[in-house]
């Protein structure tokens, strides 16, 4: 099968096959956006798109981390809980008032990567499946949230409030400072994957871990690093979420891991690892954001129809992507 594929490519100009998924997602996104504009006047305001970045920025940051993990063929289910725990810890430390904001920031940002590092170590050294280890991590982080406080804690710290409420304006439109952070994370993530040895090792491990090991690549270090990175991205996401909601709440971001995984996969990353781009992930998050926005703009769906429609749009999207040949046929076997 493999030998045949190459021969399908015709000579002359063609888009490299590996970019097809991302391009397909982009095209579909544009189509959806145009549909939105044609249906709802207010949709055409560029602010609608900016709002997706403002509202889903933290999801995007977490998704960048998840992209690393999925590229190695792993999975990280703990992200939602780590996001919540980071926000919770920040709120809790700030509430006590005795810890300066800078220190809180550092502590809160350290939790995610630490947990990620530990999970990575367990996954690598003891060869336990990532799904299980990160599921335990998810329980743990969520448990820590309620353990810290089972009530939501508001944040009144000046720095946080400023980060939450200041707006960077250009013309009629604006973004929040968080969006800048999001863009920085996205750019760094993309650059690391494309232009560093570490980034390429991530792809190599996703392609064939055994081979990567035999080629003398630092498999263990890389695997531990991706979970640490994912933890770090979740921590940043948690901080952004705490900017966004100005509070810590033990029940927030439940089920977020599935949204994030869905976004990354819609963006063309294969769950089996080895193939995908951060830019695709950005598009994936935008797709989910546009779906959500369309539904809100419509404003006539009741609760269950909302879910059914989200599921339906997800299906339409994945189906189109699959049928346009953007994503290769899923390998049924994991290895």
């Amino acid at each position, binding site marked *: 099968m493999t030998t045949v594929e190459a021969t399908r490519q015709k000579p002359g100009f063609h888009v490299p096959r590996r970019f097809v998924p991302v391009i397909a997602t982009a095209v579909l996104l544009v189509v959806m956006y145009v549909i939105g504009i044609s249906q*709802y006047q207010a949709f055409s305001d560029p602010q609608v798109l900016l709002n997706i970045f403002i*509202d889903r920025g933290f*999801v995007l940051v977490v998704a960048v981390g998840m992209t690393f993990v999925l590229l190695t063929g792993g999975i990280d289910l703990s992200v939602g809980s780590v996001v919540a725990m980071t926000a919770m810890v920040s709120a809790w430390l700030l509430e006590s008032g005795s810890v300066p904001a800078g220190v809180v920031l550092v502590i809160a940002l350290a939790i995610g990567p630490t947990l990620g590092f530990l999970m990575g170590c367990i996954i690598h050294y003891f060869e336990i499946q990532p799904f299980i280890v990160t599921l335990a991590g998810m329980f743990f982080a969520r448990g820590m949230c309620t353990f810290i406080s089972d009530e939501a*804690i508001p944040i009144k710290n000046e720095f946080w409030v400023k980060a939450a*409420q200041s707006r960077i304006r250009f013309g009629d439109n604006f973004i929040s400072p968080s969006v800048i952070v999001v863009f920085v994370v996205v750019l760094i993530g993309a650059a690391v994957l494309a232009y560093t040895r570490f980034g390429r090792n991530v792809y190599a491990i996703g392609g064939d871990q055994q081979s990567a090991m035999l080629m003398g690549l630092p498999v263990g270090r890389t695997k531990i690093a991706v979970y640490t990175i994912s933890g770090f991205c979740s921590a940043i996401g948690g901080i952004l979420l705490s900017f966004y909601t*100005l509070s810590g709440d033990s*029940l927030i971001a439940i089920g977020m891991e599935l949204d994030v995984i869905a976004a990354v996969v819609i963006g063309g990353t294969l769950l089996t690892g080895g193939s995908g781009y951060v830019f695709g992930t950005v598009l994936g998050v935008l797709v989910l954001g546009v779906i959500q926005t369309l539904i809100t*703009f419509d404003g006539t769906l009741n609760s269950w129809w*909302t879910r059914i429609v989200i599921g339906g749009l997800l299906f339409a999207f994945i189906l189109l992507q699959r049928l346009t040949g953007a994503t290769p046929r899923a390998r049924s076997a994991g290895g």
Partner: protein
Amino acid sequence: NNSDTGGDSGSAADEKITLGFSQVGAESGWRTANTTSIKDSAAKAGIDLKFDDAQGKQENQITAIRNFIQQKVDVIAFSPKVETGFETVLKEAKDAGIPVILTDRAVDTPDKTLYKTFLGSDFVKEGKASGDWLVNEMKGATADVNIVELQGTTGSAPANDRKKGFADAIAANPKLKIIASQTGNFERAGGKAVMEQFLKANPKIDVLFAHNDDMGLGALEAITAAGKVPGKDIKIITIDAVKDGMQALADGKFNFIAECSPLLGPQLMELVKKVKKGESVPARIETQETTFTQEQAKAALPTRQY
């Protein structure tokens, strides 16, 4: 079709009011009744309702509110998932000149100008009403009264507040003791499974306090299966007063229910109209709710809507 929600902001007073409503989700029958009430009343009051279901996610609620602002609706109302975290977007609404009404839960902010009014029940009060009834019921108790508690979803506001209200009330009588307290996630299945173990671990249970009817109904089955008589051997207090709960109360299986009414719709639509006209409204409006004993339940049951 929705071109009317677009650009022209110079809406005259007699034009149809557009209300953007962000619901938390549809996690329980109570919530669904709440949604239905709001939709029906909006239709009846001739208000154009933009309804959004946040799927239980606060971030979705904020997004929805932002989109309502984008669409320039006349009034925004929402049931905050938690008290915290809405200040920023409320400021944006205020800047855009769109009045906001809170339903069901308040928002924790020092700046009370961010919303016009808060319409909803008081969970602490519900817990307290339950506790007060028990204190009164157990006035003459000579021995310790063993209470088990079925909590709502850990960390959720109703669970926290009802627990607190109840604990405060029963502090009045040191004989009233909570010997076990566990979450049943507001579900019947959870209530049943937890109660089964309560019954096995504690030979003497006198009272069950469940944070909602559903858990109470689940526990009911466990109690019956253990060979005890609910309502007699073990007194049962719950909150909500949904139809099934009221039935159990009328049948003598429950002993007391503190109502938590989801039927905010009519009151909300009144407020929307007032707010739109610029009339002043009180900052806090409590939903009309009551408590039920077994006799009251029998009387009220035939007219129960949900």
